[in-house]
């Protein structure tokens, strides 16, 4: 049995926060099920704005965003939440909920009138916590966890939505290298084993080139290059996107080259 192939597609996307200052200029973007896509680019290149448009949080001024062929603006909030989930850059909860309740909040769009968890909801939450290795902190609050553990909880919460598309905003920006690796491996596994379309905005070109199936390189609201890492990780393209001289240092065997900025 094969799962239906979910696709998130943006066509000729345009967006401006202030008139005549476009942040996105005709961006085309595709994220397919089973693929791990990283969006790269300098600060202010429009990565996060693109992500917010894909989430349905910002309404693009031009172009369309289709999820399985249907415009996301035409989905209700709840219907969209069953297809698409989001992991923020900084995990935080104003209210001191234990981790199990935080993960169960991911069931909001599935649960009944009071949002109380049924057997099905508990089973899904359990699976999400197993996947992210967060079962052991079930009774603790976010404040009592390390940054890496807290980020895993936020991923578990997103997985509890049972989305076909998972969007992450620089999830490793404040994590140590061990946790960075852990999160990137997790994102790769979610794409390959859980058949999700995983989209991650990233600042780490090396990790992105190593784990992602697709890279999207942005500059000034436009896509400079996109495709598999082999096609995008080129000295000229990276130099154009980041405005620095870039050198690729070969690694032994099949490993992708290391990217070194001068």
């Amino acid at each position: 049995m094969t799962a239906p192939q979910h696709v998130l597609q943006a066509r000729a996307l345009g967006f401006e926060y202030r008139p005549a200052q476009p942040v996105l200029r005709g961006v085309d973007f595709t994220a397919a099920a089973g693929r791990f896509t990283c969006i790269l680019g300098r600060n202010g290149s429009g990565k996060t704005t693109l992500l917010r448009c894909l989430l349905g949080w910002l309404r693009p001024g031009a172009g369309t965003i289709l999820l399985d062929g249907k415009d996301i603006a035409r989905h209700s909030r709840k219907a969209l939440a069953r297809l698409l989930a989001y992991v923020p850059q900084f995990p935080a909860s104003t209210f001191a909920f234990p981790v199990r309740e935080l993960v169960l909040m991911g069931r909001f769009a599935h649960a009944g009138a009071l949002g109380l968890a049924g057997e099905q909801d508990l089973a899904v939450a359990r699976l999400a916590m197993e996947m992210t290795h967060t079962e052991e902190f079930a009774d603790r609050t976010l404040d009592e966890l390390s940054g890496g553990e807290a980020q895993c909880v936020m991923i578990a919460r997103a997985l509890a939505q049972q989305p076909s598309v998972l969007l992450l905003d620089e999830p490793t920006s404040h994590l140590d290298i061990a946790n960075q690796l852990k999160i990137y491996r997790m994102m790769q596994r979610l794409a390959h084993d859980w058949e999700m379309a995983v989209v991650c905005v990233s600042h780490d070109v090396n990790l992105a080139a190593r784990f992602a199936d697709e890279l999207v390189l942005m500059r000034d609201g436009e896509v400079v290059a996109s495709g598999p890492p082999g096609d995008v990780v080129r000295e000229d393209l990276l130099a154009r996107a980041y405005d620095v001289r870039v050198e690729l240092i070969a690694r032994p065997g099949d490993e992708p080259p290391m990217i070194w900025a001068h």
Partner: protein
Amino acid sequence: MSDPASDNLRGTLSAKKLVLTGAVLLLATVAVLGACSLVGVISLGDLTPLVWKTRLVRLTVAGVVGAALATAGMALQGLLRNPLAEPYILGISSGAGVGVLFGLAMADWWGALPKWLSGPTLALAGAAVTCGAVYGIAQRRGRLDPYVLLLSGVIVNAFNGAVMLSIYLFVKPYVVSGFMVWAMGNLTDNVSAGMLLTAGACVLAGWAVLLARGAAFNTLGLGDEVAATSGVPVHWLRVETFLVVSLMTAAAVTLAGPVGFVGLIVPHVCRLVVGPDHRRLAVVSALVGAMFLMIADTLCRVVGELLNAGDLPVGVLTALCGGPFFIALLRGRLKEHRR
């Protein structure tokens, strides 16, 4: 067969626990109602059915007002992610007060008003307008700074106070004297059954809506973006909550005037005891709020009887307790920020 992972999810809120909590607290509330109705300077032997019935009505009013204010405070704290939010501090109560006073003044100026334009309707209008004003001042592109929100509440409160004083200047003194006591937050014996029923129905309906939004308030604590992508209609939730809070506050203010700080103290203490889940908090805050105001009013009545000073307005007592409580909360938050 025992599944070790399932233990991690034990303790999750269920409908059974919610109903059980509600039932136990409801019994406690009825017990408090009964006990308070028997307390007084008159000895039990001399307590006539008429006095007892009068006390019961007044306590029921206290219960409805307490439940309304505590639930409204709980919802505002959840919606605004701010433990200092409550109808009195944000000026919503004084907005309802302006509405009621305006109704009295108009009756004084032009004789009897049409029935639909009576005190309660004007209270609701005043509360809703104030809600909109405070939110409009404090928000920028849909984002709220918690301190700007409190400040705009303070300003709107001062403005509403000035409006009330201006109205005082233009009405006959006897209209004002009754209003002065009411404006402190005062429960009286003479509330008509129709008024009590209408206000009670409004409070019950509002409470049901806010209980149903509990899960959304919980999720909102994760930030607007996460809440929205989890399926919470964030903007609509704000509008709806402000409307419901206005309705409940207007009902409370119509019955008892602007009683302060109940919406601050009760949800806060409840949160410390039963945790942050807004569904449980809706049930617990409402009933604890009812008990709190019944006890506070009984205290005021008995002290008034003992001192032979007539009734002390219950709002004076809640403000005397609530002021220091608010300052303690604010200091605690500032300390947290500096860390």
